[in-house]
């Protein structure tokens, strides 16, 4: 049955009978405690990804690798990060594969890619809370593209380390939307610092956000933060 499903994958496309791939779904479950069979399944999925199957078929394969992919899947998925129609689904798997190689692959590809695909990769690093990417993201805060700056700021706000906070303090956003992202990320870092017991650094961030030039909701958030630091 599994062989037939992989055979069906070769011609699978939008509008095809979905159930022909069910044996692959079943194999994802049945190989849970059989590492050899699981490795074999992963290898077959990766191999399929290298063939000229349809975008829909590759979409399906990436969804399965999201569930069972290991470091072994990473090189093939990483090659798709720069492919317009497949980059998102490559991240669909890479963002959720726990192996550090997945984050490393995104970090390595980041400088080579521009435009919207880059935004997606930045987002994935943030969602992985990949602290090793903070220096890369810090540099992107200085990018000339406001969309990149906004995305990098939000990712740093997801990572929420003191290094993220430091990078954000150096940001000089030039548009209202990038400013809001930097402010939001800074607040996020301050909350994490406070939760970790680092009140001093948290208060410093909150105080920096109290100026008259800041949006009302940000001043309110900073005030609430200062009160929280004071235990109120």
């Amino acid at each position, binding site marked *: 049955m599994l062989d037939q499903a992989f055979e069906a994958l070769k011609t699978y496309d*939008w*509008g*095809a009978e*979905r159930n022909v791939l069910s044996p692959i779904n079943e194999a994802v*479950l049945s190989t*849970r405690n059989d590492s050899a069979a699981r490795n074999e399944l992963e290898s077959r999925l990766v191999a399929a990804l290298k063939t000229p199957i349809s975008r*829909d078929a590759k*979409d*399906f394969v990436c*969804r399965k690798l*999201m*569930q069972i992919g290991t470091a072994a899947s990473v090189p093939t998925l990483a090659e798709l990060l720069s492919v317009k*129609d497949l*980059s*998102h*689904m490559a*991240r*669909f798997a*890479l*963002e*959720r*594969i*726990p192996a550090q190689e997945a984050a490393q692959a995104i970090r390595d590809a980041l400088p080579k890619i521009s435009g*919207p*695909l880059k*935004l*997606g990769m*930045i*987002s*994935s690093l*943030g*969602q992985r809370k990949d602290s090793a990417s903070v220096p890369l993201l810090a540099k992107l805060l200085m990018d000339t593209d406001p*969309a990149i700056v906004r*995305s990098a700021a*939000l*990712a740093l706000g997801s990572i929420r380390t003191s290094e993220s906070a430091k990078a954000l303090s150096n940001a000089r956003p030039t548009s*209202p*939307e990038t400013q*809001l*992202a930097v402010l*939001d990320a800074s*607040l*996020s870092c301050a*909350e994490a610092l406070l939760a970790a017991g680092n009140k001093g650094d948290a208060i410093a961030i909150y105080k920096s956000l109290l100026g008259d030039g800041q*949006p*009302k*909701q*940000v001043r*309110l*958030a900073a005030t*609430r933060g200062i009160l929280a630091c004071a235990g109120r």
Partner: protein
Amino acid sequence: MGTKTRREFIQTASATLAAPYVITSTALGNDERAPASDRIVMAGIGIGNMGKGDQGAFLGRKDVQYVAVCDVRNSVRETAKRKVDERYGNTDCKVYNDFRELLARTDIDAVHVATPDHWHAILVIEACRHGKDVYCQKPETLTLREGPLMIQAARRYGRVVSGGSQRVLEDYKGIVNQCWGGELGKIKSINVNVDPLSQLCNLPAEQLSPDIDWDLWLGPAAWAPYNAARCSGSFSTAGNSWRSYIDYSGGGMTDWGAHHFGGATFAVDVRELQPDEVTFHDEKEGKFLSLRYPNGIVITHNRPKTGNLAVEGTPGESREPKPVPTYKGEGGIYGDFIDCVKTREKPFRDIELAVNTIAVSHLCIIAYQLQRSLKWDSAKQEFPGDAEANRLLDRARREPWQV
């Protein structure tokens, strides 16, 4: 006027005058409308189907000034605008295809959101970042990871964010009153029957309708070709509607689950908690789940031969009755939200309670998907030591969308 432009003159003059020369009846208010200073300025994002109903409810209120509508379908936008303009007898209602333009407006106090579920988290979080209060239709989240982010945004900015199930309070009064009234004694468990889970959508491509901004409809979801059934707002969860498909919805498990689990968690008073254990039962009568809360109360899902919201109490034993929480203000769940926007209190379906409810649906989905039991650490929002389940906490969003 010398070298001053008309606009500069008006700005200077306005600043100099102690009061407007003419105060309109619209500003002062009348039997139909509250004074402008007491009105909540609102807009709607996603205004087909459920959004249409939400819009009608807010638009009908004297204390709301409805100023803008946003939808990725042109026909929906125009119909919604017409409704607002007819209500106010003018043509002032603004229309937006892209929510970012609407949220950038500083004159809007609150928005209601009724897009498909895959947009909810981004919209609620962005609205909070822009200082807006939010009424968000249920199911509030598409993944477990989104819930805490939405709560965080609401709390960070001190926003009033309400979830959208009116049924939690209004449909299950009988059982809620029995439980809270102490008639059933100590509550042991409650059962919820709801189906089905959403499925992967593989509908064929169709000719793209010029009415819809398809890329924006898909938003953070995986790219797929246009198909009218894929994006239909029909209430079906068994095919031919976005509610049926995994990229946009959890299916009946979240769509009706938001109501039923909402009613169940309310009845047995675990709204402020999340389960810490999900047990997968594969028995002769069928597969079902039991979700145990830290206080020992159990919610079962699809327990064989058990009715929806059937409660197991302790017969013959009674407990001290507790006052049943209810809406604030007037006008049901919508009035509750508006009242809280004014008072800054938490609404009946505060986002945290709504997220706790829908987390039950998501835990069920993951347990059925993996066909096994799970442990859940609600404080850390993860399945402890369970990498396989933790992969299903969230999913990558399509560029350029990000939370």
